[in-house]
């Protein structure tokens, strides 16, 4: 699939289509879709913006590449004046007072936000079933989950309801649904894109991540939204990635994979087989492939969830119904807090908040939280050493194919373990792209920190050889 952004841009410029008809059609499709991807439609503002783009074209003015391109936003991003529910009961009626930096940059470039998309509440989930808007249904087989937490965003892209969508990835929330719905999804290096205006889940791994149907569209969107932002002091300046620079992968000589990801019994035999078939194709092109040692998947999952729960317990402590959100009054202030929180948070969110407070409490923090931080450091060190030996690491996105709707809610441990292949790269803050090839749920392509460009190069190479 070639770039939809370039294709639509050409159609707009040549007046083959109007921006208004484009936006109206996407809104209609979103409104009637049966995959539960929509939390709210941004109909009025989208139509106004589309008319402005048409007026500009009619008057002979040039338009930018992203001007008039309709896109979706996971419902955890602030967009001034729109409902930003985080798919939660708590914030069902909450309206963003301001706009997230990444979203503002897209709007400034002329792209048109048309929908706030369904997801797991506060990003807590891997199936987009933990939501008050109904489980997101997989784009390919609606009996299966859409993946999560950015499930609505991935399904919208896969079904051509949005040209691209902006998801959020803390432990795999862009990469896994991208794999489940056979589209591209990028978790850039931590800090490349500002998190300002993204509702915080686990701040040390939260990343803004574009989802699209082509590498080129991911590149265009990434270039637009990257950059240093004084409102997020973990951001850094980055160079734009050019189309020419990623057209060749000749500098990639060595590729690694983690052998213990493949030697586990939990991996689907077909995913394993397909993965090794891809490895063979890479070797045929003269690239050296190395099997690497890495941490056990259950250690990765436990480290990630220990730290993510601690961070989300802290981040969500602000939600008490005092200044915003759905308040339920009790006899005392403390009662109001606890009734409000117990009635409004979902079971999964409560499980994570309680888990987070457990690990942060005296007597537990040393043997769990501090140890988690220590393991995280070792993971980062291990990646540093790996990238002295290899240029790229590839891995499956998930050990298994998407579960049926309802299965993950019954077995949260299985849901946590399904993140085994994605969370390590989050803890390492590395750039990782899901490509919809190689296995039934795709492949992850990872490079060293700040080397997002190399990920694109290898993804282009894979596109040609698989």
């Amino acid at each position, binding site marked *: 699939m070639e770039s939809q952004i370039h294709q639509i841009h050409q159609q707009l410029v040549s007046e083959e289509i109007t921006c208004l008809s484009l936006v109206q059609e996407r809104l209609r499709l979103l409104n009637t879709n049966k995959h539960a991807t929509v939390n709210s439609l941004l109909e009025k503002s989208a139509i106004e913006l589309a008319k402005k783009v048409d007026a500009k074209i009619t008057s002979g003015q040039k338009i930018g590449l992203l001007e008039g391109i309709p896109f979706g936003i996971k419902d955890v991003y602030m967009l001034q004046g729109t409902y930003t529910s985080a798919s939660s009961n708590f914030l069902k009626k909450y309206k963003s007072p301001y706009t997230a930096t990444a979203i503002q940059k897209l709007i400034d470039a002329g792209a048109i936000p048309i929908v706030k998309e369904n997801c797991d509440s506060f990003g807590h989930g891997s199936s987009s079933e933990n939501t008050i808007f109904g489980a997101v249904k997989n784009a390919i087989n609606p009996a299966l989950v859409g993946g999560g937490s950015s499930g609505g965003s991935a399904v919208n892209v896969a079904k051509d309801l949005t040209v691209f969508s902006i998801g959020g990835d803390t432990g795999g929330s862009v990469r896994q649904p991208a794999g489940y719905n056979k589209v591209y999804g990028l978790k850039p290096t931590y800090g490349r894109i500002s998190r300002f205006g993204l509702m915080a889940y686990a701040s040390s791994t939260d990343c803004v991540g574009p989802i699209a149907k082509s590498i080129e569209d991911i590149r265009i969107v990434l270039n637009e939204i990257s950059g240093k932002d004084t409102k997020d002091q973990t951001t850094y300046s980055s160079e734009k990635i050019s189309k020419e620079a990623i057209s060749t992968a000749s500098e990639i000589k060595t590729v690694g994979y983690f052998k213990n990801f493949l030697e586990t019994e939990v991996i689907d035999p077909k995913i394993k087989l397909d993965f090794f078939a891809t490895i063979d194709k890479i070797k045929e092109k003269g690239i050296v492939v190395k099997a690497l040692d890495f941490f056990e998947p259950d*250690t990765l999952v436990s480290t990630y969830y220990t730290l993510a729960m601690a961070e989300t317990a802290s981040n969500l402590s602000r939600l008490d119904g005092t200044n915003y959100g759905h308040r339920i009054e009790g006899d005392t202030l403390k009662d109001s807090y*606890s009734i409000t*929180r117990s009635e409004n948070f979902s079971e999964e969110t409560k*499980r994570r908040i*309680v*888990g987070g407070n457990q690990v942060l409490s005296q007597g537990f923090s040393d043997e769990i939280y501090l140890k988690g931080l220590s393991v995280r450091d070792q993971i980062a060190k291990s990646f540093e050493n790996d990238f002295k030996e290899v240029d790229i690491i590839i891995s499956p996105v998930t050990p298994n194919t998407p579960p049926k709707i309802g299965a993950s809610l019954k077995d949260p441990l299985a849901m946590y373990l399904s993140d085994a292949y994605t969370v390590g790269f989050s803890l390492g803050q590395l750039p990782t792209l899901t490509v919809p090839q190689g296995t039934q749920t795709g492949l992850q392509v990872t490079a060293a920190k700040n080397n997002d460009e190399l990920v694109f190069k290898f993804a282009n190479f894979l596109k040609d050889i698989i």
Partner: protein
Amino acid sequence: MSKIMTVDILSSIKGAQPSETVNTLFEVIKNANTSSNSFNDQHHNAVFLDELRDDVVLDSSPIEKQLIIENFPKEKNGFLVVSKVIEE
């Protein structure tokens, strides 16, 4: 003056109990092999003092102020009403 607080109090969630599933995850990390328990040799996420943003108060735009007021859960006679104050 140490006081033992249960997770329901710590979390401000009525009746909250630790989850068996989550405890299973914690057991794995407790038993994980680590070369050391220190975590101070890899942390490069700190921001340099020179890079801190200016400490200035930015006034919210009128629309932002309006939305903040709209989001407030309760209003009476033009005043924003908070819950009862802490009695203890």
